[in-house]
């Protein structure tokens, strides 16, 4: 009886065990059009197409798995994934923990507020910062946006959400005063919530707030140099031959491929 119980326990622990034979890619598919889950349960989106193309070019088999954003990098570090692609910006804090490929995209960011808010009239970044003093700003847990709010809007209160649509719904409910997300994400959210939200202030980039990072990249475990070299080459060729631009136009309607300085 005892051994039976122990072996069941062990079986439970090892149920998820899998050795690496193909590349495992982690993503948090709640971020359309970057990545989301369609009705059939498949992960689709810009990142999905990018990673498929990367895998094709490095001649690897890739399995994409979906999990919560804030657990992606810890999972990568312990070897659950070989790569993480999830609209993830390169930041110093993250770069200490993992290696990033060359950036493949750089999306614009934006504040948004409830429709009809006075903040929609503000055009300059500095004015918006001043107007947001003492206000509550919704961001996603563990995102670069959280870091931006903490660093540049110290008098505002960041409120951490698990999901983007929860930020949108709470904006609409009037529970928070503003939200900070990617422009493309707002567009997606506003489409489903006609007339409830308005964008505020200018488009933002890492030039405005360094915490946004240096573009969006694929994360890999430290020390996977060979893989990184192959992925870097693939990304460079995709940027050069316009594949990224093509996919970007397909999913966003505009080109956010990373422009090297």
């Amino acid at each position, binding site marked *: 009886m005892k051994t039976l119980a122990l072996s069941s326990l062990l079986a439970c622990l090892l149920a998820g065990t899998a050795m690496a034979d193909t590349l495992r890619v982690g993503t948090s598919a709640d971020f359309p059009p970057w990545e989301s889950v369609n009705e059939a349960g498949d992960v689709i989106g810009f990142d999905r197409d990018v990673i498929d193309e990367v895998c094709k070019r490095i001649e690897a088999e890739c399995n994409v798995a979906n999990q919560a*954003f*804030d*657990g992606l*990098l*810890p999972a990568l*570090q312990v070897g659950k994934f070989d790569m993480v692609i999830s609209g993830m910006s390169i930041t110093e*804090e993250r770069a200490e*923990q993992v290696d990033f490929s060359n950036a493949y995209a750089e999306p614009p960011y934006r504040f948004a507020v409830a429709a009809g808010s006075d903040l929609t009239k503000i055009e300059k970044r500095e004015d918006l910062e001043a107007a947001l003093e003492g206000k509550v700003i919704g961001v996603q*847990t*563990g995102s670069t946006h*959280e870091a931006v709010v903490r660093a540049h809007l110290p008098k505002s209160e960041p*409120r*951490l*959400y*698990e999901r983007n649509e*929860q930020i949108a*719904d*709470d904006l*609409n*409910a*009037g*529970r928070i005063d503003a939200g900070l997300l990617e422009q493309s994400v707002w567009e997606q959210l506003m489409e489903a919530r006609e007339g409830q939200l308005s964008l505020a202030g200018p488009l933002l980039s890492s030039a405005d707030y360094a915490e946004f990072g240096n573009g969006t990249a694929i994360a890999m475990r430290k020390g996977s140099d060979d893989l990184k070299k192959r992925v870097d080459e693939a990304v460079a060729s995709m940027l050069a031959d316009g594949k990224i631009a093509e996919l970007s136009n397909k999913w966003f309607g505009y080109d956010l491929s990373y422009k090297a300085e």
Partner: protein
Amino acid sequence: MSPDIFIKATPIVLQGLQLTLIITICSFVLGQILALPLGLARQANSPLLRWPAAIYTFLIRGSPLLVQLFIIYYGLGQIPAVRNSILWPILREPLYCGIIAIALNSAAYMAEVVAGALRRVPKGQTEACISLGISRRHRFTDVLLPQVYREQLPNIGNEIILVLKSSSLASAITIMEITGVARAFTARTFAPFEVFITAGILYLAIGFAFTFLFRLLERRYGITGTRTPAPEASA
């Protein structure tokens, strides 16, 4: 696991302590207050009281607290009529929503405890009161209720621990109590173990403090020898 991060994690986790205590104590007290009328209604003769109370406890005890929390926070917040009502200043705040949801949940479990205890008070007590000419109201406040609550002290002490554990769910509606800050810290530092273990130790410490407090109360006010089985745990 590095001791450094333990040291770093401690002040972070302590940031959530205040909110955890506020949620726990407020939800517990509110839950106890709501449980009394609910428990009485469960035991009432009139079906008009008995049925609504029974349905309420059935629904609350039959579904997860997380669902109830989301219904109250995300669900109600999307209804314009709610946003225009006088309740909005309260329901607008995640903290109040958390306290209300946990309190409503706790009340359903405690109501069963109260109802059960009332059921076990011997009929002879009522008869004795009537023969002594004690009024209905005093029979209630001086004889029935003190018995119920003094007998149920161990269960009430147990309930506050359950409420403490439930308070961790408040992190799901943006409240940065202990579990919330621990999780946000993990997302930033990628060091899961130290933070969650530190948080766990803090929860155990709070739990022991409450347990100790209730032991004291039990020693002072408890009725021994009438212990009843613990009620269903709330989750």
